[in-house]
């Protein structure tokens, strides 16, 4: 069987009278995959809500000291246990979501705005402009992105905003390349050529064909990059470059728990698990859309 759709031909009438699109080429997503997607979206939803409205999840002050409750394991009263300063870890994780997620979104916004714009310019202008932009991204990609973020933080100084900027800037090059190659595919496509031959001007083509069709494949990477930003930001915080104590942030919470690894496992395990869950969920969303995007081609 070839992959062409099967056509019922009526040779007498002369025209193909009906089409049975080959449904084997378009597998529906399995039930399991759709349940997985729902779960992933739920996890991300909860995390985002916690970041926006921490009051919905806890009424406990993340800085409040519960005297006599020093390094207590998880219990009904303190579901995630308490830390060495007798503070409620659950409340600190909920409030930490705010810092971690806003910083990740800022980083994401920086790398996506910068990346898609530069990629669009490079891909559609071509020639000299393209060459310059691509050589600069080549340079930027000669350093692993975590190291690049570290260098930027070293230059800018510490703090959550600086960390977010560093992670965002370090991510621009990869998005630029992704967007550029996507733009090139579309710009060289037969349908853009068809529009050129129809006499449509380049600005209109850019707006009506190139931008919408080239951003679609890049969009799936928003989810993946969101996860990657969370990891990068919590890693930098873990290394002591992000928030200043006593402010809660996921990576910083894990770092704070390091000294009590042998005695209070929950201090490192639980915040780390939360980060992992959110990033796994983000990757899951990416995988779902990437695989469905591939099969609908």
């Amino acid at each position, binding site marked *: *069987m*070839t992959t*062409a*759709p*099967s*056509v*019922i*031909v009526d*040779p*007498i009438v*002369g*025209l*193909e009278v009906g*089409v*049975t*699109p*080959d*449904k*084997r080429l378009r*597998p*529906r997503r399995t039930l399991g995959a759709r349940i997985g997607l729902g779960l992933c979206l739920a996890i991300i939803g909860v995390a985002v809500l916690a970041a926006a409205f921490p009051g919905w999840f806890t009424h406990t002050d993340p800085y409040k000291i519960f005297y006599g409750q020093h390094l207590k394991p998880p219990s009904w009263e303190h579901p995630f246990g308490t830390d060495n300063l007798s503070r409620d870890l659950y409340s600190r994780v909920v409030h930490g979501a705010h810092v971690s997620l806003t910083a990740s979104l800022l980083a994401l916004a920086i790398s996506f705005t910068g990346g898609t714009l530069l990629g669009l310019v490079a891909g559609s202008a071509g020639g000299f402009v393209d060459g310059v932009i691509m050589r600069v991204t080549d340079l930027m990609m000669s350093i692993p992105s975590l190291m690049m973020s570290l260098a930027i933080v070293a230059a800018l100084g510490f703090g959550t905003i600086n960390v977010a900027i560093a992670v965002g800037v370090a991510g621009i090059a990869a998005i630029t390349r992704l967007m550029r190659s996507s733009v090139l595919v579309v710009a060289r*496509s*037969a*349908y853009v*050529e*068809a*529009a*050129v*031959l*129809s*006499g*449509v*001007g380049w600005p*209109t083509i850019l707006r*009506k*064909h190139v931008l*919408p*069709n080239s951003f679609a494949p890049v969009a799936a990477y928003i989810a993946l990059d969101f996860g990657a930003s969370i990891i990068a930001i919590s890693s930098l915080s873990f290394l002591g470059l992000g928030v200043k104590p006593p402010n809660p942030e996921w990576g910083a919470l894990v770092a704070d728990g390091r000294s009590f690894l042998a005695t209070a496992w929950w201090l490192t395990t639980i915040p780390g698990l939360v980060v992992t869950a959110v990033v796994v969920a983000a990757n899951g969303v990416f995988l779902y859309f990437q695989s469905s995007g591939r099969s609908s081609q």
Partner: protein
Amino acid sequence: MSVLKIRGLGIDYVTHHYREVAVSDLDLTVEAGQVVAVVGESGSGKTSVAKAIVGLLPSTAELAPESQIVVNGVDVVGASEAMLRALRGAVVSFVPQDPRRSLHPLKRIGAQIAEVLLEHDVCTKDEVDAHVIDLIDRVGIDQPDVRARQYPHEFSGGMLQRVLIAIAIAAKPALIIADEPTSALDVTIQKQVLSLLVDIVADDGVSILLVTHDLELAARYSDATIVLRGGRVVERRSTGDFFAGPITDYTRALLRSSPTLQPRPIDQSLDDRPVVLEVDDIRRSIRLRSDSWWGKGELFTPVDGVTFRVPRASTVAVVGESGAGKTSIARLVLGLDKPDSGRVIFEGADVHQIGREARRALRRKTQLIPQNPASSFDPRYSVAQVIAEPLIHDGLDRSAVGVRVAELLDQVGLPSSFANKGALELSGGQQQRVAIARAISLNPRLVVCDEPTSALDVTVQARIIELLLGLQKETGVSYLFISHNLAVVSELADTVVVLNRGRVVESGHAADVLGNPSAEYTRELIASVPHRREGVQ
């Protein structure tokens, strides 16, 4: 005893949501030494039949319970995996469609042939090299000892197909299944490869099941032919008998649709008509990328001094094999690329010397019908949006656009209900009609057709050609028709330009060039078009 006996074969493809019948109730017999052709268009189930015989159907396929496939006395249906393995290669072997992708890229040619010999104990390990060299020699490849140590990427497509034939005959099977063995090759190579296959088989007394979409090919090489449509046999004849007078309407239509080399008569008025397009000694070279910093890349000249003219309301065909420079010419004519030298003159103006505004006006008068219409549609667009794009840009208002789109759909023979369908939901033939509607929407003077039917089945191809001819008569448009298929060209061309490696080998009236070719290359091309046997209509 028959080599192959199929009775009551039914194949369904089953997924969770869907069951599709690919083949039903098929009977087929191949006697020893016979060449039997299975002919059908895409979706006819012919490839499924071929795969079922060697047990290579995908896991989604389901055989009907009463199916029987007997190869050399062994029933394949329900045979154990071990029994199937003993059959494959040794009793039934397979010559695939796409030789480039059918050999392992990381293994030496010799080793890939040796594998069959050793698996079926044709010879011992010590003798295997001699056997391999023998086989390579037998399929007509020079320097077999050197070639055996090479890798597939060092071979041309035709040579690779020879290697695959060597693999197929290595263990002296009783039956060879050839699944569209030449459709990926250039026409002149096609003929060599098929002749080789048939000759070898005649020497060894092997039977062949030739699976093809090409009725002419079947006629030329087979003893008996069956025609499949929608998974059912619609025609079964010995080949000579068959062309004497087919019985069903479908086969008659199929036969009528298959173009033969019958050029149109010379139209004497051609020379008096005004010239729409004049291509004057154009040349274009591309410097291939060099893999060093200092060295210059190799110079490649896809178009090397090409001259021709297209009179009004006529069709000029540019013919050649892949790599001859046909598509490069199309791009130069449309002003998408610039020639290094020479001129393209459209209605008196040099296409490459005019300003922006003039260029736009020109776009309106020259249009393209692409080889693959699907890729020329924005994936998000509906049929109406595709056809309307040039109209909107031309400044037509909304209601006028709607009227014009409906008119165009009617003109290309599509129902107006198609307007709101997604352009990619249509079949290949319907998509080509949409592309034609878009091309003629602004009443162009010249339409460049770049292999517009080569992706289509023959019956659909015939309708599209009919449509193009009708439109020409109606609107007086000229066509620059680019094709590798001489038979198709003979149906609609007034003038033919034969191209080889970027140069014009021969050009002139279609009847002269095709009926009485002067260049050796043209004769070769013509000889490779399968001819209908004597006594046909």
